[in-house]
């Protein structure tokens, strides 16, 4: 095992060197991202604390709900950790570029496997720290436990991460061993996405918000049984929840030696089992994953027909790029399968509107419906920005290292960038209008609101797409290993912030005129000349901001691409 440390060391060196060598812009990026992360943690802490304080104020069931919430959080984290480890393990154990070199050195399989498992654990579990810490700290803030809680939190979370890593890596090794080598990555990504969608639906359709409203249950027994639903004494999450909850609420902590021992024995057993399995199947799997890929011909004719129809309006040179983009997208299982996630997002979005308890609201119904329709524009805009961050922001970078084909061709970069814009505009407008019209229909809003929402969304999408393409070109990265990571990098986060600000400005500017028009309609008063002036001025400013959001980022992106130096 003397080589294990040597194999892990490069990761620490890379991290240290990055910190030392980052200067100016890069260091600024680190600070901005760090600041955003901190702000997110603070927000999570405040929201969690308020929710828990509210629960605590409810007699009898308050603590029950808080405990249930804790078990749901731990269960969710545990599931997400397993998925995250499955995806990261594929890269770290089978696809990393330096693996060939490592396998050619005289280190043992066990050492190499453990070092890569350690990388996987590090890469996958930082999420728990960022999302989990503020929530656990909120529990500590509300329940004021002793120092023992923090120790329990630390070691039980560590055990949970090891168990999840063990499970994720084990599943990955077996999948790689069983499935045909050339499809391994695709299949694993596909399975992981399906699992995430299933979990998402399961969580959403359980309607956890009902737990905060006991009146929605027929009897207290039904409510209490709902609180116990996902627990099982065989799940490590149950042992962790029990131990954490008691160290939170029982002064001095309750003796949970059995649960703690069980958790740690499971964690360490997972490590041993993984090493045994790795001895048997890791090298075979790695060897298979190095084999060349083959063409898969399934659905080629349908794709060809689809491509022919869609590329036609774009003319010869842009049409060629559209054809290339469509073929690449639908042949890359890691790309098109994300449409499933997108579909799930849209279904849950619409579902949320269908279960809104509007009739229980103390506010006048038609006012509330229209108010919600107005806010819906902002929410839909945000959803579209998130989708755009994944698919449109990465559109230019998606050329990858083959970008030289574009830059050395006679195609003008301006034409190329606007071509990408038009290519993404149509599906995005369609999606936006479907989101807004269907949810407005569920809300039963007035015709005026329906019209205003549709028009506003149309113009807003023009800006959201342009911001995506422009920022994508401005922060183009053609040397990525995983394109999905670009949307959560500095450029992607910046795009989301700018896009959110743009949406917020449009909504705020339209709020005044909408209120004036709505109130005049309700009260039967006519709109004054000054109010008309305000209305027209607001809509003019909205139009100007939209125009700016379309042309400015495209111009900046074009300039950046022209000056791109590889």
């Amino acid at each position, binding site marked *: 095992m003397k080589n294990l440390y040597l194999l892990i060391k490069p990761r620490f060196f890379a991290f240290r060197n990055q910190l030392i060598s980052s200067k100016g812009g890069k260091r600024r990026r680190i600070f901005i991202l760090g600041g955003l992360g901190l702000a997110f943690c603070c927000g999570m802490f405040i929201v969690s604390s308020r929710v828990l304080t509210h629960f605590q104020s409810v007699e009898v069931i308050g603590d029950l709900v808080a405990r249930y919430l804790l078990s749901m959080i731990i269960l969710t984290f545990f599931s997400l950790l397993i998925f995250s480890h499955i995806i990261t393990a594929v890269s770290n154990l089978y696809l990393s570029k330096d693996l060939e070199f490592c396998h050619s050195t005289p280190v043992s399989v066990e050492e190499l496997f453990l070092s890569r498992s350690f990388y996987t654990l590090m890469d996958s579990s930082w999420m728990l720290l960022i999302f989990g810490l503020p929530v656990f700290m909120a529990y500590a803030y509300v329940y004021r436990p002793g120092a023992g809680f923090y120790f329990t939190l630390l070691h039980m979370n560590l055990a949970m991460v090891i168990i999840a890593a063990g499970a994720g890596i084990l599943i990955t090794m077996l999948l790689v061993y069983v499935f045909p080598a050339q499809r391994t990555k695709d299949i694993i990504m596909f399975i992981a996405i399906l699992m995430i969608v299933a979990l998402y639906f399961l969580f959403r359709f359980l309607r956890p918000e009902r737990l905060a409203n006991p009146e929605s249950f027929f009897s207290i027994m039904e409510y209490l049984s709902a609180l116990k639903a996902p627990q099982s004494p065989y799940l490590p999450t149950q042992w962790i929840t029990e131990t954490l909850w008691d160290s939170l609420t029982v002064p001095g902590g309750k003796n949970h030696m059995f649960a703690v021992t069980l958790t740690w024995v499971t964690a360490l057993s997972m490590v041993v089992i993984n090493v045994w399995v790795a001895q048997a199947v890791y090298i075979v799997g790695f060897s298979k994953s190095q084999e060349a890929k*083959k063409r898969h011909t399934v659905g080629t004719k349908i794709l060809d027909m689809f491509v022919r129809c869609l590329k036609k309006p774009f003319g010869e040179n842009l049409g060629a*790029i559209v054809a*290339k983009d469509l073929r690449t997208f639908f042949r890359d299982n890691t790309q098109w399968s994300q449409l499933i996630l997108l579909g799930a997002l849209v279904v849950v979005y619409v579902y949320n509107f269908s279960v809104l308890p509007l009739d229980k609201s103390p506010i006048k119904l038609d006012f509330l419906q229209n108010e919600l329709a107005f806010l819906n524009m902002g929410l839909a805009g945000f959803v579209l920005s998130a989708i755009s961050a994944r698919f449109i922001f990465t559109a230019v970078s998606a050329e990858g290292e*083959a970008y030289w084909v574009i830059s050395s061709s*006679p195609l003008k970069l301006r034409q190329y960038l606007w071509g990408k814009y038009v290519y993404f505009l149509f599906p995005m407008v369609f999606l936006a209008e479907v989101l807004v019209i269907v949810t407005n229909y569920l809300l039963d809003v007035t015709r005026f609101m329906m019209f205003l929402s549709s028009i506003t969304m149309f113009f807003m999408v023009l800006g959201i797409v342009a911001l995506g393409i422009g920022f994508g070109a401005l922060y183009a990265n053609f040397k990525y290993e995983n394109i999905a990571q670009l949307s959560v990098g500095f450029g992607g986060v910046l795009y989301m912030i700018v896009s959110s600000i743009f949406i917020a400005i449009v909504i705020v500017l339209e709020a005044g005129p909408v209120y004036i028009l709505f109130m005049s309609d309700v009260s039967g008063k006519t709109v004054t000349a000054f109010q008309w002036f305000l209305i027209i001025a607001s809509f003019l400013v909205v139009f100007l901001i939209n125009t700016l959001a379309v042309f400015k980022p495209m111009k900046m992106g074009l300039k950046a691409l022209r000056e791109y130096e590889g």
Partner: protein
Amino acid sequence: MIKLIDLTKVYKGFRAVDEINIDVKAGVIFGFLGPNGAGKTTTIKMMAGIIKPTSGKIIINGIDLAEKPSAVKQYVGYIPDRPFLYEKLSGLEFLLLIAGLYRLDHTPLFNHRILELLELFDLSDWKDELIESYSHGMKQRLVMCASLLHRPRVLIVDEPMVGLDPKAARLVKGIFKEQAGNGNTIFMSTHSLEVAQEICDEIAIIKAGQIVAKGTSEALRRKAGVDGNLEHTFLKLTEGKRLAHEKSLPAH
């Protein structure tokens, strides 16, 4: 056909290419030699319109690349040192993409040309396979195929022989000679001094961003004051006093 006038590229204070001047006539195979990091690829990328020069001019076929990049690129075929391609396209689909970018008409004659080029580069059997299943050499041959598709008057080539087997290398040398014979110009960087000696009409040697020698291989030999092959000339001109083979590895 190709004129580089005071061409300079500065990266964060480092002069990668330093005021180089080169004039290449039509029908010439021009070899661009130099040690690693001398500025060969940077010069070639500037000529292909991939990166912008800090100063200086690139004139191809009498047109300034900075003023009319699209018009110049229409005449130029570019072969990069590493064949990064769209892996999810088939070889044929990649060639059709290139045809679209260069606005080539899909006439029966053109389709015949595609098949002819695929045959020439021994890729006919692989034309419907995804590029991700190609070997390095096959990808390199596909890039060459694509670069000749629009019948360029100037071929800009960065390390053409890397990854090619002897048969493919011989084929490529033959194609370059044929292209030059037809009045087209080839500007080629290479590490292979044998290739340069065998096919290049003129050679320039670049070192630390500057041209240290230019002319036929005979003229370069005279300038270096050495006898024998181009290897001796190159090492003398780029390393100075001692030749590389005269140095020995340290014992420990």
